[in-house]
């Protein structure tokens, strides 16, 4: 009788330990993948001035579009620095993506862009940066989802309080057009 009780206690104790550790591991993964997004966003922000100065000469007439890109970029930088939470960052980055999309669409009207020597390299650089942001976001959302699922499922939810687990905010994409990673093509087809 006493032995049975002891056994049950040990089993429960072991289970609590495993569940707790799993939640902590997932929590750290979420934090880590958020860091990865941060790194990639910074890359993106650093690249945009280069892009603007590269196309400025050819696209002098599109001042307003270029300015929109720059101001969207600056707002995104502020949002990242303020670390105001996933929603704000996602919103600012979404606006930046849209501004970039307009710029790329307009760039099709300027065949002379193709002649610029480093435009190909810049294009590859931009493509990979956009992809990296996209994949970092995808990883973050995947990890955050499994973290959220784990802490809400029974019986792990009983330990969630102990592990100080709270649902991680997903990086939602509101705009359907933004769902697809923007197609960076400065070459005209």
């Amino acid at each position, binding site marked *: 009788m006493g032995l049975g009780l002891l056994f049950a206690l040990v089993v429960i104790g072991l289970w609590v330990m495993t569940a707790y550790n799993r939640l902590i591991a997932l929590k750290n993964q979420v934090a880590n993948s958020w860091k*990865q997004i941060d790194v990639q966003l910074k890359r993106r922000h650093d690249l945009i001035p280069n892009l603007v100065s590269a196309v400025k000469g050819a696209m002098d007439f599109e001042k307003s579009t270029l300015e929109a890109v720059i101001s969207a970029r600056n707002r995104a930088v502020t949002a990242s620095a303020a670390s105001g939470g996933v929603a704000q960052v996602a919103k600012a980055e979404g606006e930046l993506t849209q501004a970039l999309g307009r710029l790329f669409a307009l760039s099709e009207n300027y065949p002379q862009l193709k002649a610029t020597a480093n435009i190909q390299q810049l294009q590859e650089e931009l493509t990979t940066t956009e992809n990296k942001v996209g*994949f970092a976001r995808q990883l973050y959302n995947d990890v955050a989802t499994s973290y959220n699922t784990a802490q809400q499922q029974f019986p792990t939810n009983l330990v969630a309080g102990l592990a100080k687990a709270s649902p991680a905010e997903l990086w939602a994409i509101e705009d359907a057009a933004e769902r697809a990673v923007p197609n960076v093509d400065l070459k005209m087809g």
Partner: protein
Amino acid sequence: MTEPQNLFEQQESNRRRSFWLTVGFVLFFAWVGFGGDLAWYLMSRGPAEPGGPVPSPHTIPLVGFVATLLAGGICWYSWKQGPDRVLWATGAKEIFEPTSDAEQRLINVVEEMAIASGQPRPRIFVVPDSDPNAFATGIDPAHACVAVTEGLLRTLGRDQLQGVIAHEMAHVQNLDIRLMTLLAAMVGAIALMSDGMGRLVRYGNVGRFSSSGGGSGSSRGKGGMPLALVVLVFWLITLLLAPLVSRLLAMAVSRKREYLADATGVQFTRNPLALAGALEKLEAAAEPTHTITRGAAHLCIVDPSGGALSAQEGAVGDIFGSHPPIRQRIIRLKGMAYQWAKQTGAQTGA
């Protein structure tokens, strides 16, 4: 897809299999060594003939000790140096600083896929071969290497390259690379040893047995010789079959993994059609990948022998192909794309 496992189970299974592969490898060498000693002992034993040479039984199992030690050494070497040896054998060169746009693109794509899979960025190699192919090697994700041929860089578009690299990162993540690399190293070692031992038997021991025991076979103890023959025959059979069996093992182990890596890779890129397109192009390149030898065939994304076997469907391909038929893989990928389109279509439609 064939084995509905989660990532953790895949990793566990690969760790376990790598361990047992190593154990089995040492045991096999021990058998070859000590079995040889036993056969030698049984042959050299036997009552002394009156007037004949005094038999000096082979009592110290020296071959066994040497073979076991050697196997231990090879295992240690395979774990430490396996990936480097595999890369060395293909003549792959590591890219530190990109020297061309294509190499820059490769680095970028690998970095993208490292992010998507949540793994550290692997070391990147290019194999000087005009046939498109790719493989990954390494003992763990932190020290993984991804290698592609020059032909691959030339042939594939960016999205297709991404699909191929995602497939390789899937191998890295689920620790297939460890098992595959150890297999490559050990299959090679077994083939070598079988060769060497066979030569030793042909020119060494057997010759001595027949010359010393030739005329006196009938007068030897009746219990000794048949047993000795059975052991010897059994020993020779294992020795002769070992290279074949180990290669079949390598292929069987790799075949299922390709579907799984395709599926995991698609989870990274979310773009099944790109990988399908890449596989179509790889299939169309019928020319064999010369730099990649048979021993490392199972590491590659498509069979480097020129596609003769990976085109085979049915029993022959099932037993001898190191890869599932490419057609089947493409069909599965297109199926995924269809499912995907249906799901997302339903979501936006609602």
